[in-house]
């Protein structure tokens, strides 16, 4: 399951970030590493990008980017 497939309000944990390009590097730099907990807070009015809460701050990312993040639900 990846981050782009979750419904708003889901809580989960990062399992793995796919890819080795700039986007994947940035996702990891911003704190999405295996074991990191997050809450999916919402989406922009046009449905994309998404808004996450991770490590105590708000992060926005596009669905195409979120699809690289494998996750498991925690609640």
């Amino acid at each position, binding site marked *: 399951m990846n981050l782009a497939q979750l419904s708003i309000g889901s809580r989960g944990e990062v399992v793995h970030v796919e890819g*080795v390009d700039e986007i994947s590097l940035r996702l990891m730099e911003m704190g999405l590493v295996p074991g990191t907990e997050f809450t999916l807070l919402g989406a922009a009015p046009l449905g994309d990008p998404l808004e996450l809460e991770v490590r105590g701050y708000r992060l926005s990312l596009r669905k195409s980017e979120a699809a690289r993040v494998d996750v498991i639900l925690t609640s």
Partner: protein
Amino acid sequence: MSLSAPPRVVTVALLGNPNTGKSTLFSALCGVRQRVANYPGVTVEKKVGRTEIAGRTLDIIDLPGTYSLAPKSPDEMVAVDVLLGRRSDVAKPDVVLVIVDASNLERNFYLLSQVLELGLPTVVALNMTDVAAAKGQKLDIAALRKRLHIPLVEVQANRKLGIKELKAALADAVGGKSTAIESPFPEKFQNEVTLLEELARKNEDEPLPRYLVERLLLDTSGYLAEASISGITPELLKEVATARERLKIAGIPIPAVEAMARYQWAAKVLKDVVTRSKQRPTTLSDRLDKLLTHRVFGSLFFLVVMLVMFQAVFWINDALRIGDGIDYAAGWLQSLVSSILSEGALRSLINDGVIAGVGGVVVFLPQILTLFCFIAILEDCGYMARAAYLMDKLMSKIGLSGKSFIPLLSSFACAVPGIMATRVIENRRDRLVTILVAPLMSCSARLPVYTLFIGAFIPNRTLDLTLAGWGIHVPWLRGLVMFSMYMIGIVTGILVAWILKKTLLRGATPPFVMELPSYKVPGLRIVWQRMTEQGWAFLQRAGTLILAISILVWGLGYFPHNSAKIEPALIEQQGRLESQLERFSPTELEENNDALKLKSELAAVENQIAGEYLSDSYLGRMGHFIEPAVRPLGWDWKIGCAAIASFPAREVVNATLGVIYNLGEGAEEQQLEETIQAEKNLNIPVALSIMVFFALCAQCVSTLVIIRRETGTWLWPLFTFVYMTALAYVGAFATYQIGMLFV
């Protein structure tokens, strides 16, 4: 490190994540004592400020805000090169100052852990502890100090608290012991870096620093390998590839190991230092965010904010230019000059070259100040990132990101501040595409051109409605033509952006992974500073060049000023009228009917003479010269000449047409409209062709100069000028040729 005499000037590099209050801290440290320049070859601004403490001078280099010291573009490379002392134009920093957001320490410590590996004396400024408290976090600062082994100063940059202590800590840190921490990486990884470092040392006189060797091993995006950095050799790259293989087998994934190791380090340092309350309190910022990113309310709010911003920039231009402001001041100065100097080249140079040129520069200032007032407020309160978030989906359809929206919207008022606003776009390609299409958005300077030709040629068909007793006449045809002019710019802009992203500026889609900062009340000082900074930057670095080109075009329109080429009868008539007028007393000149009649006759003659001079000037000759080229657009030499004369600014075309049609340059619009209507060479297709040309052309020296400033090279303004002029020509040609089929 040696303990020799400390340097007189201490160089401090200021680094931090975006949204940590870094600019606020920079101005709290240095006040207005700062210099701004560009690093050659990149679009990053070089900001250096100066301050004193205890007899020491501190030079503070404000490095661009960044989440990580892992360069993936030449712009990001600047910070790394400055810190490693690899730039000849910046002294190697004696101290690194890292500002961190106390409410967001984990992510901020990622960057800190990279800085600490550089081994430079480092000082941490802990900002925004109040925000952390509001988020229900408790910070044990004493424990944090103990764990970090480096000076840590608590500051509140927006209230200038802790600044003195911070300066003292910076001065104390100079020449102090190296602060390298134990590397957060696993031992096997470190060993591979050491092996590579030894290889790098063997190959070059200038060995690659260990930090860059480590980066090379970690950079799977391929940027460093291809960046032609001296010291990165094919042998080294080969060894990097095999090292990655070995590490993979050992269960150390590249590049993920970096983020994992650094976040582990951050977690270890912050364990029991930060305690979050179990139930995180919902802050005002959380509630605002929910509202402002809401599907309906958030979108509405965004529309209102954008509308107000756009209207303000548009309005300020109108109010200060056409009203009593800049035009009035220029007119007053010009009549003052006319009363002192006699008619001749010098008077014309000062009045029509210098004063008009300075006016042409100053006229941009109110727009720049207004737009940056809004942008600074939006940025400082945290809404800017939300605006990009809301518009991203729409902008991604043409290959750009939400960050391009505000610069492009602003360009409908004026491309100059719009292009200056592209600084928010970190990705170089996205920023360039935005800069290159911004001048296609119909700016307020095109309006006078549109209104003149629409007023003169487009029939006023109205839709008459009666609503509750009120008669409303909607000028639908003229409105439609005006709307089409705006649409031509938008549609062309979308196409050009799309093509550029597919061809010249092709590349991987940049990440849109960004922080949505907490909302806060914007700081007035920061807003004011941001506005004046942009205003000054424009005046200093674009103003002089714009003025020079305006004077050049004036010269082309004035010289050779050969009176032998003027119809002798006209000069004779002028002399006769002047001597007749001399017989009247000053009061009679204002009231006597005969005198008034003579005066208007004289003015007509003088306008005719001015028209002949212009026709014979270099500009006029250029107009004649290019006539064969503009014929297919339906233009005669007069229009061609006016188009060339409008190179400094589009709106100049009206004044030039005024002179060409012997009306004088201050011709009333009504009068000019009637004259061009009567002109037999002009009809609706020609008028449309002229409007389309001005909708698409790059006749605005200020825009070109600002593109040069923002991109650091003349290549891009040249490119803009060529592609826009080509489009304008083709557009005008098609308009005229198709239009003639219906006439």
